[in-house]
């Protein structure tokens, strides 16, 4: 394991201005990520996971500290750090092909010919198994298919880092499993560095090389980092009975439900919520039962 610092978060701290003065959402987040590593960010709602992702994407600027990718500081968004949004964010008036084309035209202008671009777009559609829906618009395809197109759009930018904000959060369990398998395939083939936010403990253990567990906000930071030493390619059915896999799962669960209780359980401590706190998160709990 050669330590080559590819993506580095150093003492990332962010304050959001509020009426009652600055609200510290993140406090001194430090993380070093190797090339091709798959990182999951897990934590309760409002712990600033999305904020971390947005800072890496360049959509938010850290108040203190910063992010360095390949020796260069991240100061603005860019296609080398592609984002897959939770709600697909496809342009509703464009077909799947045209949605991907928008990015490809921008990134490969002057580098690829028209024919090469078309081939590249079709290749990426094929990668997510969406060739059949090439000319369908987002409102004509299912949620899982939209998310596949969203992933294809991100991949088509040929990003070094793929940032995924709960990409499968809004999907049903079966669709989610299929997309996780697709994502593992793609990651094995392309070797992008991935940072994925999730609420799903199984998803985190199945996909990640490391799981970064975050403490509750305000002033959230990294609580623990769990290395997942499971051989790839991983098969969910085989792993279901694997004692090591189940050990990792219970480690994450213990962190979430013993060391970091749900905000609100530790009375009144976390009344101000970070900007990304939106829905009450019961999903992680439910998934434990269904697993």
């Amino acid at each position, binding site marked *: 394991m050669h330590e080559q610092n590819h993506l580095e978060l150093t003492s990332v701290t962010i304050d959001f201005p509020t009426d009652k003065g600055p609200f510290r959402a993140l406090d001194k987040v430090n993380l070093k990520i190797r090339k091709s590593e798959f990182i999951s960010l897990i934590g309760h709602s409002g712990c600033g996971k999305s904020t971390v992702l947005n800072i890496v*994407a360049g*959509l938010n600027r850290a108040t203190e500290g910063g992010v360095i990718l390949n020796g260069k500081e991240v100061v*603005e*968004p860019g296609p080398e750090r592609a*984002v897959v949004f939770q709600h697909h964010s496809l*342009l509703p008036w464009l077909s799947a092909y045209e949605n991907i084309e928008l990015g490809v035209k921008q990134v490969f202008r002057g580098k690829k010919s028209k024919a090469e671009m078309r081939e590249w777009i079709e290749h990426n559609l094929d990668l997510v198994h969406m060739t059949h829906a090439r000319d369908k*618009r987002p*409102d004509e395809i299912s949620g899982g298919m939209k998310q596949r197109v969203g992933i294809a759009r991100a991949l088509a930018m040929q990003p070094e880092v793929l940032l995924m904000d709960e990409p499968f959060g809004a999907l049903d369990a079966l669709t989610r499993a299929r997309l996780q398998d697709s994502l593992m395939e793609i990651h094995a083939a392309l070797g992008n560095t991935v940072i994925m936010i999730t609420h799903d403990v199984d998803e985190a253990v199945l996909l990640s090389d490391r799981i970064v567990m975050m403490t509750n906000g305000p002033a959230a930071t990294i609580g623990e980092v769990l290395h997942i030493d499971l051989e790839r390619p991983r098969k969910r059915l085989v792993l279901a009975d694997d004692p090591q896999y189940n050990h990792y799962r219970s480690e994450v669960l213990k962190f979430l439900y013993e060391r970091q209780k749900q905000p609100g359980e530790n009375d009144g401590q976390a009344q101000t919520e970070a900007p990304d706190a939106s829905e009450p998160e019961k999903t992680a709990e439910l998934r434990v039962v269904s697993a």
Partner: protein
Amino acid sequence: MRTDTMADKYQAFNFRTLDRLLNFLSTENISANASKLITSIGIPLAALGVFLMLWSVLAAQVQTSLGVLPGPAKVWEQMMTLVDEHQAEREKEAAFFERQEKRNATKLASNPDAQVKIRPYTGQATFFDQIWTSLLTVATGFIIASLIAIPIGILTGMSQTLYTAFNPIIQLFKPISPLAWLPIVTMVVSAVYVSKDPMFAKSFLTSAITVTLCCLWPTIINTAVGVSSVDKDLINVSRVLRLPWLTRTVKIILPSSIPMMFTGLRLSLGIGWMVLIAAEMLAQNPGLGKFVWDEFQNGSSNSLARIMVAVLVIGFIGFLLDRGMLMLQRRFSWDKSAVLR
């Protein structure tokens, strides 16, 4: 053997029940279809019937200086008179041109170098000519307003500074009645639009500009709201892609604000049509508004019925204009799922 017959019987019974069931279902279907038909056509028809009945009963109670307030029958009769007048006028016009042609032909036959004059027909404008004038005027005013309002809406939607700058002005001018604008517009038009051979009549310009002034605001406001409320994720997509300003505007901001833009345009056209009638009355633009005003001044025993014809036609055209905008919206908007009312 015995079991066989039992089975046969059972089968026969089964078929019969099936048959009956199918019959039942089909009559059920028919009655379901019938009830759908009744709700979609019958109810509006019944409401219309009740309305006409109340109208004819109640109108007969009102005695005005121009006679009894006309009921539906009288209005229908006047409608037919207006159609007849229109046809008579067209015949007169055709006859006029025929006479002129003949005269010119004989003139040319006797002297091939003769200068022939072709005079335009200057007969009375009929009700239907006036409808046409009104449509032309409202279209002119509305198109000018849209050409001004959409760019302003886009700019104010995109820039908070421009929005802050424009907002007080918009809010101030929005509630102004067309009747208040009209004298000012009239004076400005007669001062500025001085031409020996005017392309448009002054009354036409005055009415159209008044329509423009009242049509601007809903389009500006709705376009600005549409542009400023583009989904934040879509904006983030464009930031991640580093789309240049123009591409971002054309590919993301404009398409996503089109539904709101059309809402604004529809409101504007509706307001414009209402404003036009008032403007035409006062500016004496030869459209529906002038027709109503002239009939009112005329004060014959048929005037009220003729005004009511105009009122109904105004309503019907307003409805058609709205439907027309709706069809345009369906044609141009990506958001086919939007509820269109």
